[in-house]
């Protein structure tokens, strides 16, 4: 019985793993193109397991950014995991002991969270382990493949593949924007600020990492002030 719960988790993780394989492939390419070694790229993927944070991270690392900038960028970009962690903690089975939370919590990603919280039953450690296994392998393996073999691809194809990560981001934000005009306005605000910082020469001193932080914090504060979520609503959708 326990074994079948693990298997159910494995099966639920397959589509996530396939998506991660493709996206981390583009991360591997981007990391090596930015000047990191394949081993360094793989280590980042195995210890971080997060797309946006890692992409921002390699930008800061290869630009020789400060430790503070790196820490702050990871904090702001990945802060969403705290919210997910809070939400997920309500769904965890009693058998989820502190050590198990400490180990399996590492695999909390947008997609794994999404699948785990949408389960009607409490989430058991075995189910979560099954769910996280293939995506973790996919993310690490894809990074390795991209980092090692990315150089063999012609530069044009490599650039095109590195766009896949942005495609994944679009796939995450568009459904949210589609279901809530308020969320759409706030996302648009973040994009407008991002473009202003990018294109207006006065803001050239702002690095990419800080730009993301500035855009996200300003737009999200405006969102929280203008369009606060309803009292017992987890999300707009």
């Amino acid at each position, binding site marked *: 019985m326990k074994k079948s719960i693990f298997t159910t988790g494995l099966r639920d993780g397959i589509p996530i793993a396939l998506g991660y394989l493709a996206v981390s492939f583009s991360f591997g390419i981007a990391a090596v193109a930015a000047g990191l070694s394949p081993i360094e790229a793989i280590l980042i993927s195995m210890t971080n397991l997060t797309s946006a944070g890692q992409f921002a991270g390699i930008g800061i690392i290869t630009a020789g950014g400060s430790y503070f900038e790196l820490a702050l960028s990871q904090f702001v970009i990945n802060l969403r995991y705290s919210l997910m962690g809070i939400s997920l*903690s309500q769904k965890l089975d009693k058998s989820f002991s502190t050590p198990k939370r*400490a180990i399996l*919590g590492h695999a909390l990603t947008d997609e794994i969270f999404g699948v785990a919280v949408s389960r009607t039953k409490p989430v058991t450690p075995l189910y979560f382990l099954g769910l996280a296994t293939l995506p973790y392998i996919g993310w690490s393996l894809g990074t390795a493949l991209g980092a090692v073999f990315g150089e063999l691809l012609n530069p044009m194809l490599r650039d095109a593949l590195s766009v896949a990560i942005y495609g994944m981001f679009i*796939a995450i934000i568009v459904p949210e924007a589609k279901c809530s005009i308020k969320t759409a306005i706030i996302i648009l605000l973040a994009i407008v600020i991002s473009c202003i910082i990018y294109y207006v020469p006065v803001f050239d001193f702002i690095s990419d990492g800080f730009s993301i932080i500035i855009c*996200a914090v300003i737009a999200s504060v405006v969102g929280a002030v203008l369009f606060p979520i309803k009292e017992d609503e987890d999300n707009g959708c």
Partner: protein
Amino acid sequence: MDAKFVIYLAIMFCVTYLIRVLPLLLIKKKIENRFIRSFLMYVPYTVLGAMTFPAIFHIAQNPLCGIVGAVTGIVLAVFGRGLCTVAAGTAAATYIMMIVL
């Protein structure tokens, strides 16, 4: 791999790991503050929006490649396609434009 990279790696890992695990270990109750809850709800999407635009326009030499790629991705996503399809469609459209232009 030099010492500086190891420090960078340790910072990335520690910050990201603690963000993920601390709430699971510490917070048993729901956050009641409406402002914080709303702010946290908007954060992932504003981060991803700011990361994607305008960066996607500047991957290829000609910004039109990224524009066509982004529009393709948005259209696919609006029509409810999944993560893989949207990511692949965005990359494919960008690649085709690179070849054409």
